[in-house]
């Protein structure tokens, strides 16, 4: 509900919420944390300051990120297998290769503790205050926002226990209690929606920002630029996140975009290009971006990333790029391996400990696959529900009455 924090007490609470966000400062050391330097410099557009090129991370944090990313990787591989086994209903776009983005971003988002209402930055537990809206490539964002692998896979399989009752499928996952406004099938449609979400945060003075994600291909839709203008006009707390995975379907960025430096394409909106394959770098840049959006208005954040799979399951993904290109990214920049290397190098974990984590995640994903397969399909009445609010028996959706009578196909009703 869009209710402004007007009552004095609520307004004070909102100010307190905002005061938990002093302007961006370099990360500080804390107990048990170790310092990590990033290895890819940022590219900046119209920004006089930049995020730090290092961060401090604790064992608990890094292990959490690794576990999440590894789980997402296994989930996408399981989705691939399910699709090939003809279990998946509809189109299916996988996110493997891009996991660091959703995990790193989520780690910098603000969570509300459901019982105390306190705001934290813990990755797991709590509900996200910052809103998020993305494209059809949404499986892992759903998990990052707290949903289970079973709910995601069930949705893929069109099962009633899926996150959208099996009615949305791969491209349409949502999580209202974590402000995840879901996957959009129409390329670019989510950009202005993100501006509207940001306006609501500003109006409510709740300290939240909106992240609206789009691809390098989507960056050429006019709607994005309409959204950017509105956002700049009203200094909305929105971050336009370009997940640049180098291709929009079969078209490489240089063939679709006159300017493929997407971080500069907000023109009058500042921008930053970030190594989207390093979860810690994504986290630090997002922390900066969130504060920038709250204090100064919109920002474009380009995530340099890569998708391993083809565009969707019907695209083998090797006709417009070669296997070597995919293999070399896997070898040099894989985001999951990267996090694992950090854990080992920082001596936060031994290889044996990580093996245990991996085994546990694998069995969680395997169990989710079996559960999703066993779940029920949606019942027939779901065809005509969720179309309008308050649909009653009298409010008849024509053509939906399956009984064999004269009016069935709409001659009388």
């Amino acid at each position: 509900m869009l209710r402004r924090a007007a009552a004095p007490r609520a307004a004070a609470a909102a100010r307190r919420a905002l005061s938990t966000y002093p302007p961006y400062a370099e990360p500080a050391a804390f107990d048990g944390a170790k310092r990590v330097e990033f290895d890819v410099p940022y590219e900046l557009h119209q920004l006089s300051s930049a995020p730090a090129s290092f961060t401090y991370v604790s064992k608990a944090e890094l292990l959490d990120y690794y576990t999440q990313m590894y789980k997402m990787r296994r989930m996408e591989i399981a989705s691939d297998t399910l699709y090939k086994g003809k279990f998946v209903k509809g189109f299916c776009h996988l996110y493997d290769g891009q996991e660091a983005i959703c995990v790193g971003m989520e780690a910098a988002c603000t969570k509300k503790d459901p019982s105390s209402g306190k705001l934290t930055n813990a990755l797991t537990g709590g509900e996200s205050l910052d809103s998020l809206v993305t494209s059809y490539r949404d499986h892992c964002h759903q998990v990052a926002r707290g949903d289970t692998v079973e709910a995601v896979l069930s949705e893929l399989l069109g099962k009633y226990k899926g996150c959208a009752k099996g009615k949305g499928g791969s491209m349409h996952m949502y999580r209202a209690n974590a402000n995840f406004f879901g996957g959009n099938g129409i390329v670019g449609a989510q950009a202005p929606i993100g501006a509207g979400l940001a306006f609501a945060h500003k109006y409510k003075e709740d300290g939240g920002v909106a992240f609206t994600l789009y691809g390098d291909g989507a960056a050429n839709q006019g709607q994005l630029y309409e959204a950017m203008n509105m956002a700049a006009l009203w200094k909305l707390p929105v971050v336009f996140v370009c997940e640049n995975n180098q291709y929009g379907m079969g078209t490489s960025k240089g063939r679709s975009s006159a300017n493929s430096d997407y971080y500069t394409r907000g023109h009058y909106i500042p921008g930053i290009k970030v190594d989207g394959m390093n979860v810690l770098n994504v986290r630090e840049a997002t922390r900066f971006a969130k504060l920038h959006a709250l204090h100064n208005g919109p920002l474009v954040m380009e995530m340099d990333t890569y998708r391993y799979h083809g565009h969707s399951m019907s695209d083998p993904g090797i006709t417009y790029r070669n296997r070597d290109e995919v293999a070399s990214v896997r070898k040099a920049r894989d985001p999951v391996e990267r996090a694992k290397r950090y854990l080992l190098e920082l001596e936060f974990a031994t290889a044996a400990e990580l093996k245990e984590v991996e085994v546990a995640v694998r069995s969680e994903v395997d169990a989710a696959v079996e559960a999703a397969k066993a779940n029920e399909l949606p019942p027939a009445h779901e065809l005509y529900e969720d179309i309008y609010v308050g649909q009653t028996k009298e409010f008849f959706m024509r053509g939906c009455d399956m009984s064999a009578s004269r009016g069935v196909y709409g001659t009388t009703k």
Partner: protein
Amino acid sequence: MLRPQARRAIGRVSLSRRLSSQVPATAKMTMFAAINDAMRVALATDPRAVVFGEDVAFGGVFRCTMGLLEEFGKERVLNMPINEQGLVGFGIGMAAVGGTAIAEVQFADYIFPAMDQICNEAAKFRYRSGGEFDVGGLTIRAPANAVGHGGHYHSQSPEAYFAHTPGLKVVYPRDAITAKGLLLACIRDRNPCIFFEPKVLYRSSVQEVPTGDFMLPLGKAEVLTEGSDITLVAWGAQVHVMLKAAARAAEEGISVECIDLATILPWDMHTIRDSVRKTGRLVVTHEAPLTAGFGAEICATIQTHCFDSLEAPIARVCGADTPFPLALEKLYLPDELKVYDAIKQAVSY
């Protein structure tokens, strides 16, 4: 599988067509190959013709533009960025100076971002300039209809939205032969045309298609099977559902006249009127939702012209009034049994 009666009828139609058009040579083609062939003929015979759309230089999602880049070059076969509104507007500009703009919108579901350019610009260009300009050289191809698993954004049949816009032509082939003949006719027609391709037929429809220059008339419905008890009307992929239902009814001795409307706008009222005056019964079936689907227009017009001949209420067998569903697609679709049921209801009224 088509029942023998339907199969014979289709055979008759294509035979008569072959005789009327000076026995052209034919080649076995899928529907996507036939569409490809139509564009190849257009590019070869019209130096102003240009093909463009998302990924079309690589052949497009459904392979309809395969080989065109290699044959006609990158000045005439353009890969578009993802911007439907922009690409249709681009085609309008090209057509306004006499170009032949053949645009592909990757799925009919993605035509909505271009709705403004189609309905406000293309459709009204001639009228608002008092006939000084037109964009007759514009044709927009878009894959439409269900595929069994497409869900919300790969399944819709948006013809009725465009049928509500005077100035456009809206056309649906039912197979490889009609796809070639009607597409080439659209490309050469001097009005902006939208050509909806039933995507489920791209590979499954395989026919002996006339090679070389071959056009079929726009604005003309085609009687596929002659009958005396009831008239059925459909277009696009639904034609095949209609034919199966008709064959099922024929086994019970019901004589069904099946008509493929083919052009939705401007539609061939006369062929349907004459048929309903003869049979006294009409069932219209389409995949798009019932309410305000194009079937409504047909029913309203036919009851005006055939009121005295009608033996039963006109029935519509359509998609349900829901978004196109991912789950429960079978329930949503106006399948063979639903059409058959409507035939039975009408003849026993």
